[in-house]
């Protein structure tokens, strides 16, 4: 099978992960801009980070037959450093129209502060103006309230609900998101978010429509194989294979494909790896024999 992990922070992952993902059938990923575990102190750090999302990380993934897309945005946590936040918001137009940027994200609320709301509103307005998809991070604390508010504010800004993906849902929040007409993404992340078993139950109960599974694997204890593992569990537990394909491949393609940045046909073909290529004279290889023209099993 082939999989799309539409939320993963590859910048924190190793080539071992890329190799394992590729073997497990992950054909495409989206890396939304987020924070790096501790706050950045200057706008230049964001310039370099955004550049790596549209540059080096895309190249690195391609070396393992994985198509890398990204979302650009100012995350909610760092929105609270308002001086810096203003400078970062000015950067967004410089990166949002780069090739392969499929959304504005991940944006939204963390502590639900006024500063977070201003950054969220401003980025929603930008997305609406340029007809872009928005990926919303929902908060850990006061999650349901945060999600309901994220949707209401997106509505106020006149964002079409089919352009809105709300991420990190759980059993308590899914109905509010589906009723609004937005896409409901679920992060399979050990300990803090969803587990695969619970995800199976959710798909059984709500069906596959507008439901997306992702890993959000990052610098924390997380699993870049969450999506294929959950797909396998769904199949073992008797979920219709068509539903599995929708929730782990097609729905994410449909949601983020609205950007016009994803060549669906090319993704459908067998991936070709050519590790002899290099990016700015950098290779992911450090003395190993390059892997050339070995198809990645779909």
């Amino acid at each position: 099978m082939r999989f799309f992990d539409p939320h993963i922070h590859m910048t924190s992952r190793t080539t071992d992960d890329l190799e394992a993902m590729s073997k497990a059938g992950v054909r495409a990923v989206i890396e939304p801009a987020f924070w790096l575990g501790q706050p950045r102190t200057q706008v230049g750090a964001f310039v370099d980070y955004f550049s790596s999302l549209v540059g080096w990380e895309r190249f690195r993934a391609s070396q393992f037959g994985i198509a890398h897309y990204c979302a650009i945005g100012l995350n909610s946590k760092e929105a609270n450093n308002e001086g810096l936040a203003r400078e970062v918001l000015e950067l967004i137009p410089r990166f949002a129209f780069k090739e392969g940027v499929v959304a504005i994200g991940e944006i939204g609320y963390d502590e639900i502060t006024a500063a977070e709301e201003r950054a969220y509103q401003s980025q929603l307005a930008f997305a609406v103006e340029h007809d872009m998809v928005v990926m919303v991070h929902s908060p850990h604390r006061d999650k349901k309230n945060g999600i309901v508010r994220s949707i209401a504010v997106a509505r106020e800004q006149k964002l079409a609900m089919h352009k809105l993906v709300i991420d990190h849902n759980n059993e308590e929040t899914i109905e509010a998101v589906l009723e609004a007409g937005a896409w409901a993404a679920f992060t399979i992340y050990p300990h803090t978010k969803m587990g695969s078993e619970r995800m199976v139950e959710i798909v059984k109960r709500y069906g596959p429509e507008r439901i997306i599974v992702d890993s959000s694997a990052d610098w924390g204890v997380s699993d870049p194989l969450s999506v294929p593992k959950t797909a396998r569990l769904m199949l073992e537990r008797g979920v219709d294979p068509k539903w599995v394909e929708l929730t782990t491949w097609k729905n994410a393609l449909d949601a983020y494909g609205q950007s016009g940045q994803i060549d669906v046909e090319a993704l459908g073909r067998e991936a070709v790896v050519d590790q002899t290529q290099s990016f700015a004279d950098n290779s992911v290889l450090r003395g190993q024999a390059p892997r050339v023209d070995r198809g990645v099993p779909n």
Partner: protein
Amino acid sequence: MVEAREFLIESLSRRMTPPQSAWLQRTAEQVRTSRDEPAQAFATLISLASRHVPRGAWAPNADERAQAGRIQIGFEPERWSLLDAARAVLVLSRSDLDTPGVVAALEECFRYADVGELVSLYRTLALLPGQERFAWRAGEGCRTSMGSVFEAVACDSALPVRVFDDRAWRQMVIKALFVEAPLWRVFGLDTRLDAELARMALDLADERRSAGRPVRHELWLCLGRHGGERGLAALEREISQASPLSRRAAGIALARAGATENLARHLSAERDPTVRATLERALAGRVDAAAFRDLNPTTTG
């Protein structure tokens, strides 16, 4: 401030070698008398402290802890390191603590801080005058992913209860549950409970139950008298379940909510002697946040 500084120096001198003490006194004096030094110079001294002050816990004795509490309300140094105390001495030695300049100078320290420095600096904020000036910085500390840094802001310090607005306060309390920081060590918790915090806590309890996960026992501390019918129903459910720790916590929370009849009913049906003892104490009025200290298996003091 002078009192806090002298207290720290004296207590440290009993735990350091003469050369170590001499370095601290000399450096503190240098900070006290310096004028218009670049912020970087002070930030470097905060780092340099780690090369002169021994590693390890300060471990203040009971008298010292009591004295700390007298010097500054909510000052509980039980978990401080020697280095935390030495860095606090350096900050408290600054002659500009009442001026706006100190905020920028400390911001410079925070910006370049390592983990240990962050912990020391956040702890020290609670000893400074004009703490409202540091509300944003302390909020930034709560946004951390590092447990030790979060606890340096949230626990054993009177700063949050004093300067956080309602939103920041509630976020900190709920985050303490997420990162399993000891909520009973949040100074002034019982003075700032309200219906919105209770609602957030009950939403979190629902979320945990939907996920098939246990509810952290300290969550029930957040209800106080503000949980309403929904809170009582949640507590009734919790006290009827298997884990003795959950039953003990829910029992105290029932007493905190004033539902003593419910509590008495559960006590008469309870068989576990440890749970019974807790419920009896709760009925007798031991219901403040510190009552949760006894429930914490890792609690030492």
